[in-house]
């Protein structure tokens, strides 16, 4: 391999920025580097790296068709936190629902980040604003939510009585469970109208 070609190759490889033929030449003691540049460009054609000339200055760059290799997305599977799961459940059962309403139901403040996570996951989206003072943003679930959880529609979400029958509720006092049952039934029956009337 020609020594000058090697020298040009190494110079351009190590250079911190693109170099003109004159700069390369000056760097290599005044040699004429045109032929060497042409030979290198031809050699790298079709390889994973190309020698390209941009505005009279030369540099190596990754082949355009491999650019996707430089930026890769890596998916990390992460379990939804307990708080986020609760918020998601509340949105699913009560949608559309504002953050203040979610907080009222959970009995604790809901960090903004929790809703962001659910939106990042693609399960919750903003569907508008409630026409009450402050015009709070209201949230609802997305079609992706139904797909992910294998639900044909939101009506497939089990009612409280079913939850208890399935043993999904923590053991509680009979009176409490009884009260909840009544409340739950009333709620599931009234829920749609209630939401609308709240507007």
């Amino acid at each position, binding site marked *: 391999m020609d020594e000058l070609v090697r020298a040009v190759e190494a110079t351009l490889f190590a250079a911190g920025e693109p170099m003109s033929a004159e700069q390369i030449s000056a760097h290599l003691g005044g040699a004429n580097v045109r032929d060497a540049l042409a030979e290198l460009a031809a050699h790298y054609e079709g390889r994973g790296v190309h020698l390209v000339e941009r505005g009279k200055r030369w540099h190596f760059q990754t082949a355009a068709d491999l650019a996707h290799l430089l930026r890769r997305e890596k998916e990390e599977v992460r379990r*939804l936190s307990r708080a986020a799961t609760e918020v998601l459940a509340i949105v*699913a059962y009560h949608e559309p629902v504002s953050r203040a309403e979610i907080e009222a139901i959970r009995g604790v403040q809901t960090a903004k980040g929790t809703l962001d996570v659910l939106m990042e996951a693609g399960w919750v989206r903003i569907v508008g604003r409630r026409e009450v003072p402050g015009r709070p943003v209201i949230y609802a679930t997305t079609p992706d939510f139904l797909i992910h959880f294998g639900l044909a529609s939101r009506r497939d979400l089990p009612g*409280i009585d079913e939850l208890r029958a399935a043993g999904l509720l*923590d053991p509680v006092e009979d*009176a409490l469970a009884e009260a*909840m049952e009544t409340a739950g039934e009333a709620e599931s029956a009234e829920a749609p109208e209630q939401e609308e009337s709240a507007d």
Partner: protein
Amino acid sequence: MSGDTLIDGPAITLPEDDWQGIGTAASEDAALYLELDGWEGPLDLLLDLARRQKVDLRRISILDLVDQYLTYIERAEALRLELAADYLVMAAWLAYLKSALLLPRDEQEEPSAEELALRLQLRLQRLAAMRDAAARLMGRDRLGRDVFARGAPEGLRVDRKNKWQCDWFALVQAYGQVKARTQPVVHMVRDRMVMTLDSALARVSSMLGVTLDWMELGEFLPAHADPRLRRSAMASSFVAALELARLGKAELRQDEVFGPLHLRGIKA
């Protein structure tokens, strides 16, 4: 560095010309000084002297080496130079070693002078080996000095994206737990017809006053009462019967286990 070590040439004349550790003072002011900092301690100086023997370190003459070291230190002292303590300690030890080496073998103490000399020789070999290794290491083609990495790499970026995981069960359970946690606790007791113990006592004792015959406990209950009231009345009347018996106002009879309980009044 040895190059920094300055000493006036004539003042200390060492046997060989290729002396590496000591240079000739650049200035003519005749200020003689010996910079022992040029060596990294006595072992370093000894190694320098040993190399001047121009033989394999395995074959150096320890006696010659000791002599050279002691000469060097004596001259430094003659020049009234301050010598670091460790150089003097080494000098004293070498003087001892020399005298021991000169003794007939039988008179040597343990460890023998030969062993001490050998130990010194081994140490010098190891230091020399590492010094050579360091020089060879530094002489390699070093990245950033002799060879260069790509000047402007595009860089590889890995964008992490979270894929959130949650299942139906967790979702539904979470909702159930929110509900269980936040539902106001309402304890409702239904209005129930009961017969209190007081009223049962009054009723049973007044009915016992009417007759002296044995009466079955059931006969004391209200005849057409609601079944739930009857259960309450039965319990209260039983406790009332026990109370009246305790007070000596009535006596109880039961003919068989779980059989009907009878009672009658006792005349005061």
